[in-house]
């Protein structure tokens, strides 16, 4: 078995060599995942906030559904999106199968329930704290949701990161709808799967290490933004 130091050396070598193929794969990974997370936040944050802040019939059912969908298997999402986008599927005319857009759609479906369900919990806790104040000030429902989302923004940052972690690490969905086509839909995780199947375990692990490093950088950047914003808030 290859030593782990060998893998580390290979990973560093890969980064330092600035191989255009590797860079292309990294950029596409980030493009797909960040777009999917942004789309999931656009849908999931308001949805989770509304469910968290208000009482309505069947609310428990909605919460159970959202929590259950957090566990959606990526490969199932991949199959559903494939069937939708396939040339013989209902949306086949769009010609989106085997494109990065298809991968973004699949990951958005995966991540939205996570964002919505976690947002619901965060907002519900905050809402119970604010409820009396809202009532006494006569705050309308729209402003309520906005105020809750704004005041919970740092917790929601972690929510978005949970979604990012899920999306950047999954391979089951993107390999089906993207097809792992070289220079078109090949991302970090599908490359790792491909290199593993070629028996290039060292290269596969080195790529895994790079993927982890990217996740660390993204998390670090967001924490830095949060830190700066928190300090600014107290000036």
């Amino acid at each position, binding site marked *: 078995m290859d030593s782990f130091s060998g893998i580390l050396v290979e990973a560093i070598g890969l980064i330092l060599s600035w191989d255009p193929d590797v860079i292309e794969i990294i950029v*596409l990974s980030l493009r797909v995942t960040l777009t999917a997370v942004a789309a999931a936040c656009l849908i999931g944050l308001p949805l989770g906030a509304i469910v968290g802040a208000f009482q309505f019939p069947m609310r428990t059912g909605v919460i159970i559904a959202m929590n259950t969908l957090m566990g959606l298997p990526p490969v199932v999402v991949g199959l559903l999106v494939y069937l939708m986008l396939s040339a013989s599927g209902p949306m086949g005319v769009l010609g989106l199968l085997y494109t990065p857009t298809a991968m973004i759609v699949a990951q958005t479906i995966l991540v939205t329930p996570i964002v919505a369900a976690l947002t619901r919990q965060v907002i519900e806790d905050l809402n119970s704290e604010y409820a009396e104040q809202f009532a006494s000030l006569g705050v309308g429902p729209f402003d309520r949701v906005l105020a809750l989302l704004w005041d919970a923004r740092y917790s929601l940052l972690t929510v978005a990161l949970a979604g990012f972690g899920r999306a950047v690490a999954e391979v089951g969905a993107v390999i089906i709808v993207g097809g792992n086509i070289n220079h078109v839909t090949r991302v970090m995780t599908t490359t790792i799967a491909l290199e593993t199947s*070629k028996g290039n375990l060292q290269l596969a692990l080195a790529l895994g290490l790079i993927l982890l490093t990217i996740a660390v950088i993204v998390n670090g950047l967001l924490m830095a933004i949060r830190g700066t914003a928190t300090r600014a808030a107290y000036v």
Partner: protein
Amino acid sequence: MFRCNFFGFAATGLLALGLSGPAAAQNDFIIVQSTTSTQNSGLFDYMLPKFQDETGVEVRVVAVGTGQAIKNAANGDGDVLFVHAKASEEAFVADGDGVSRSDVMYNDFVIVGPPSDPAGVAGSSDIAVALAQIAEVEAPFASRGDDSGTHKAELNLWADAGVDVDAASGGWYRETGSGMGATLNTGTGMNAYIMTDRATWISFGNKGDYEIAVEGDAKMFNQYGIILVNPEKHSNVKAEQGQAFIDWVLSEEGQATIADYKIDGQQLFFPNAN
């Protein structure tokens, strides 16, 4: 609107990535549904740039098992089918999903096994006898089990050897349900015999101490065929570019390119278009 910080960040990041991303994909491309053996062996990386340089048509390869490739192509999700399971390919054409089928090239299957050779089949060139022997001593055998071309060929060879592998499934006969590379990784990890196409084996990077045990039987011939997906059935099929690719693969130049592809001095595929 509410102004969450990460929204701004995400938007900025997306914009930057969008701008720095690769130029918008050209429209002149075809999708080829093919198999892992042609992809993993590096053949496509070697031959496709030549076709692209000549015609300007980009070839996008989706490499999956032959069974899945045929189903994807039958759904119209591809312009050309390039796989290795002749009976299934002929059925694909007979069902009206494909226009016509042409032979492209062949290689052969081999059985690889651990150096301890528990079934004593090393050096054999009679596949029926070797498989019967493996079944007799119940030596572990890792099968693809994924309806791929290799899997279909393997099942035919077992039937030919008079062994009922269904009965042994989960015992000494282990179906991984995954691609060739994954099955090689799994099989070598449990000291099992594995049937693989020679091209994948030569280019496989995790051989360990495994060696070819059985080879050279004419029954282990592995024929690849190419088919244009029927544009009359699926109007999205790019018949013109797809046919141009098929014509090139079958041309003298395409065939010579296939023959030229070598790893460690070994030729992986033998062109045999008519």
